[in-house]
């Protein structure tokens, strides 16, 4: 069990969080679900995770702030941003800050896995 690659799912919407975690586990990952930015940061820094799927609009700490802090502590950790299209500036900023890729909502779960595997392989 501990051999499974752990992926952090930071998404405040419970439905989407469960959807992503479900798909990840189908694909043989172990999903660690968190629902706000503070928990995302804590888990990202403390746990042995291989990638983060990161929402931008989250309570307590937004995804951009989480990304900044995680990227300076673990620059190699691949981050995939998941946000809505009408916040293009956030998306561009996230890429500049070191996120490896981004997807906009709505998204297809298969796409998400394909992209996630891509950024994890490029590591």
């Amino acid at each position: 069990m501990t051999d499974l690659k752990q992926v952090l799912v930071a998404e405040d919407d419970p439905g989407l969080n469960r959807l992503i975690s479900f798909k990840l586990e189908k694909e043989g990952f172990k999903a660690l679900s968190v629902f706000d930015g503070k928990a995302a940061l804590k888990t990202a820094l403390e746990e042995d995770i291989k990638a983060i799927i990161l929402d931008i609009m989250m309570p307590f700490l937004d995804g951009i702030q989480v990304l900044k802090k995680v990227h300076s502590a673990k620059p190699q950790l691949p981050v995939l941003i998941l946000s809505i299209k009408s916040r293009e500036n956030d998306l561009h900023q996230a890429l500049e800050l070191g996120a490896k890729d981004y997807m906009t909502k709505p998204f297809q779960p298969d796409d998400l896995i394909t992209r996630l595997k891509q950024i994890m392989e490029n590591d």
Partner: protein
Amino acid sequence: MTDKKTKKNQKDQKPDSLLKYQSTFPKEVSFLINLLDQISDGIYITDPERKIMYWNKAAETITGYKQEEVLGKRCADSILEHTDLAGNKLCSTELCPLHKAMHSNKVPSEPLTLKALHKEGRLVIVEVGITPLHSISGTLIGGIEIFRDVSAKVELEEQKARFFSSLSHELKTPLANMQGYLDLILSGDAGEINELQQEFLNTIYNEEQKLANYIEDLLEMGRFEGTDYSYQQNVTNLSALIKSLIRSFKNEAAKKGLVLNHNIATGLGLLGDKERLSQAFSNLIGNAIKYTEAGTVSIEAWFDREEKELIVKISDSGIGIPETDLKNIFEMFYRVEHPGVRNKGGTGVGLYIVERVIRRHDGKISLESAPGEGSVFTVSLPGFIID
């Protein structure tokens, strides 16, 4: 006694400066002055050295300064102190729009949106029109600035933009849930489903996608319309912006079996609004993929040194646009009907937004297309190379 004296002095001062231009103006001047005082836009008249000779009642209301306080001064002397929306001062001789209008004949063709300083220290957003003033014989005798307080309007637009931004989030989260879970069921991740269930779920999925497209258009329009004031003027790296857009469309193109070619020169820069530009190019690339069933979508971008323009060319091998539709394609709510092609769900705001954004950046967009032969959109924007 002293009161009377002050009053007398003021009286002396006012007619004096008015007289100064009364001598160069037609005789109807006092009638005109009366008229100008009734107008709800702020108006002031200066001599060629930008010294204020007249200041109407509305100018007093908008700025808090009485005419007596400003006569003989320049608007740069702690009055108005125009800045652009980013806060850069425009008071030096080289930058002053009024000076440029009077002495280099550079009269702005559209009203400028600027900030102005109120006597109480707060900033007012004003729409400004400027024109030089010539005597009948043609010699320059001064300049006129007409300004309108649009602060309330701008505030309302900002509120609207914030509302649409949050509405966008609230509407898209349930949509993302529905699409995502349908995807999981349809792909068999949640167990087997029979053929009839598959068919019905596919119908829900297709209709839901149309709904998502309509909502996308609605939100795009909502956060776009009437927000001309909020355009940012920042150095924007167009190369990086387009590359990151291409990345976001990669999977969508791959899924349709399309080749997504790109050749983007590095360091393409322009002064503009990154979010709006992103919205425009996202619409263009998205359309190219949406309306192409097989073949290639190509995106090229380069710098035209002679014209000092950035050129972005987006070509596809898609269904194309009939000649009769070409002239209307950038109009709001205009949609091209393709016989035999399934309605993809859209309201015809995408290209309208594109054209508006490009024009707002002093750029141009052109289109070459024919049914069955694909489309080529070419955008040119004034720009430079970022070192």
